[in-house]
């Protein structure tokens, strides 16, 4: 048993219960539906800005890209312009592949040897696949939610929804219907990827060893969010019209407590608020940090273009004069030229 994931799991369950109790038992609808989301949004904005500005405030004294391919040197040697960029275009490409395709993580899976092709590699491919699946599914889910904030629903959101529910499947049973409304793939991909990432952390010895409670917490939290969302959409069937009214009220700063949308919605909303508030104070800030990583966002043109260190200061060195002073006789004796013969 591991304290870290038990703790995180317990916290997320407790949070869900607080939301449920807050509405259904204590009747604090105003607090949970209006105050909490606004406080979360404010914490997010302040925290995010503070963190990014804090990073930007630190200097970049040296140009230290990690080079992952052939440098630009002689004209007849083919440079690897993406993994070892020497121009801004190259850097932009490198960052693009890094951010959009997780290129470095993908490196994990390349270069296999034929003998001994065993399970670990499948695990590692899945890390990349699951990471991609998680981030993209999450992005799609977030964008889809825009439909609650706009009337009419923007064109691209409608298109996205169409694409997302492209693989239609329907399942009817006496007590259980799925397929109506249209099934969004993204929600299930999100949940699946999350479960994989969680399983990897729990079952892979060395990953479990390095994992902190703050690594499990966001996983459980987002699992909670995704699960409550899926529950609402396919099983609990909450009042979507009321939710949309509520969401638009929040967005237009004329918040109104929704009526009769069911406890599950409040749990969903509260967990989302916690995630939003937690984001800037946690490792989730890798989303912003990756843009500022000096080993990736600088060109490897060090010898071609001088990089300025704003806090470069002069230091005491051992000068040639001091050196000659100490060794002059021996140098003269050995026939090595000196500045001052004496």
């Amino acid at each position, binding site marked *: 048993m591991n304290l870290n994931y038990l703790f995180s799991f317990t916290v997320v369950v407790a949070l869900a219960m607080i939301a449920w109790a807050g509405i259904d038992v204590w009747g604090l609808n105003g607090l949970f539906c209006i105050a909490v989301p606004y406080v979360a949004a404010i914490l997010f904005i302040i925290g995010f800005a503070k963190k990014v500005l804090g990073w930007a405030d*630190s200097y970049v004294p040296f140009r*230290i890209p990690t*080079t992952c391919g052939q440098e630009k040197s002689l004209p007849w040697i083919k440079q690897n312009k993406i993994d070892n960029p020497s121009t801004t275009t190259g850097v932009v490409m490198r960052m693009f592949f890094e951010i959009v395709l997780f290129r470095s993580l993908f490196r*994990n899976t390349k*270069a296999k040897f034929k003998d001994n092709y065993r399970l670990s590699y499948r695990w590692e491919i899945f890390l990349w696949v699951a990471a991609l699946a998680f981030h993209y599914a999450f992005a799609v889910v977030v964008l889809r939610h825009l439909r609650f904030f706009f009337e009419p629903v923007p064109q691209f959101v409608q298109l996205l929804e169409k694409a997302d529910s492209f693989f239609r499947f329907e399942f009817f049973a006496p007590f259980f219907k799925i397929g109506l409304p249209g099934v969004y793939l993204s929600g299930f991909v999100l949940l699946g990827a999350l479960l994989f990432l969680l399983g990897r952390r729990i079952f892979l010895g060395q990953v479990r060893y*390095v994992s902190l409670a703050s690594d499990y917490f966001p996983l459980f939290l987002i699992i909670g969010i995704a699960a409550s969302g899926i529950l609402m959409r396919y099983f609990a069937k909450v009042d979507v019209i009321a939710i949309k009214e509520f969401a638009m009220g929040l967005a237009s700063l004329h918040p109104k407590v929704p009526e009769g949308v069911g406890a599950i919605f409040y749990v969903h909303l509260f967990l989302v608020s916690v995630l939003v508030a937690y984001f800037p104070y946690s490792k989730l800030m890798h989303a912003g*940090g*990756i843009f*500022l990583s000096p080993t990736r966002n600088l060109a490897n043109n060090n*010898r071609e273009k001088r990089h300025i260190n704003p806090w470069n200061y002069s230091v005491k060195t051992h000068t040639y004069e001091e050196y000659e002073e100490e060794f002059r006789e021996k140098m003269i004796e050995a026939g090595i030229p000196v500045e001052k013969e004496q």
Partner: protein
Amino acid sequence: MGNDIKPEELLARTDFGTPATGWMDTPVEIREGMYCYAANPKSVEYVGLPYPHKWDPLEEDWHLPDNWQQIIHEGMKQRLERFRSFKVFMDICVRCGACADKCHFYLGTGDPKNMPVLRAELLRSVYRNDFTTAGKIMKKVFGKKISGARDLTIDVLKEWWYYFFQCTECRRCSVFCPYGIDTAEITIMGRELLNLLGLNIDWIATPVANCYRTGNHLGIQPHAYKDMLDFFVDDIEEFTGIKVDPPQLNKKGADILFITPSGDVFADPGTYTCMGYLMLFDYLKKVYGLDITWSTYASEGGNFGFFTSHETMKRLNAKMYAEAKRLGVKWILGGECGHMWRVIHQYMDTVNGPADFLEEPVSPITGTVFENARSTKMVHIAEFTADLIKHGKLNLDPSRNDHLKVTFHDSCNPSRGMGILEEPRYVIKNVCNHFYEMPPNTIREQTFCCGSGAGLNAGENMELRMSGGLPRANAVKYVHEKFGVNMLACICAVDRAVFPALMEYWVPEVGVTGLHELVANALVFPGEPERTMDLRGEPLLGAQEDVDEE
């Protein structure tokens, strides 16, 4: 330590397996063979580094100043402001574990704290506690295990020291990190902090002091430097029959200044690489009139200051530009070295530039403009030689290396801090007929470290070096068994210094060579007598006359 265990229990005992505590609760155990001796206070004092004092890693009391926690705290604060890399890397790791099995020290020693992510967590846990509000609150409420934040205690400091001197700053983990988090950067910061308390290792501190004083790490004085080069001239004549001129030293007005690590001049098998340089330069002088000088003042390309602090690195590196300026050369040519080239390529121009007193490097023989060195004005000798070969300026007979089956080890710094991958391969393929690559996940940007870089090439930590070098040796062994490879080529002086021991332990049949030793073997001088031996006095294949033993 509890009860004496019974003999029959010995079998069940493991030295590592239990107890399965979290890493924060597993105190550091400084193991014999895995650490380097403490710095001699005299060396620390000579270069004016902070708090020189006598101490021993194995003793309980490290004799630190009373306010050591404050010194570290302020040191961290200053570095977080000065280095965005440090600040960002402290914040954004998600502990995905992609780096965990990429470290040669983890693969070789099996010590979990050698996983790059944990090495960084050693610092990060203190960062969270001291510099983040969230971390502080979390620790107060839930304790250190849940928060991942902890106070800087003496045990934490000892852990830092032990593990930051078990990292060779090779950057392999950085290649696989989705955010480019570079453990080298973390280790550099960690070592800078330790140096604020005088906690260096002697294998770094003493070379630094030597280099500061005499211009090279071994403390060799100018006349000995000259004697050594003159001796190579004799050796070259003995083995090849070619009379090369003694190299020019400290010559004002030469075209090019040549700087190489002192290991090439003073330690086998780097000495053969040095003989290679001498022959190449002499050839170019006789055939094309090359005017190149060596320097006794800037007689060290390597820079152990880089393993101490950015400031010390700058102080030692200053000699290169200072000497180039004093001698009035046009540009600088650099020999085969790993971390020397990381410093030259990524730091020198910034810390000691601009080199506006030099000219944009142009090869006087081919006329090639080295545009990629336009600002720093220093060219890597592999770039220089590859250009010569491409233009057909060297008369080469690769069959003279036919007694060698060569593989090439990409040194960490040139591959991941510069990207010089094809140049040395091009040179090798032109001077050798038998070249075999090691498996793809052990070369180029994925190359495995020699296990002894970043100042860890001492003798007392031999077990660490052997286990850290295992992933590299393992790949060499593979090509040795598969293709009969018997020579490991590299472009790094530390490699040349440490590989012989590594090979002797893991793959005794494989030797170690620099690139330019191979070049010199193949280089045909005008009117030279037929060679029967290579630069080491080993018989060439086909020159059977006086071969009596292998």
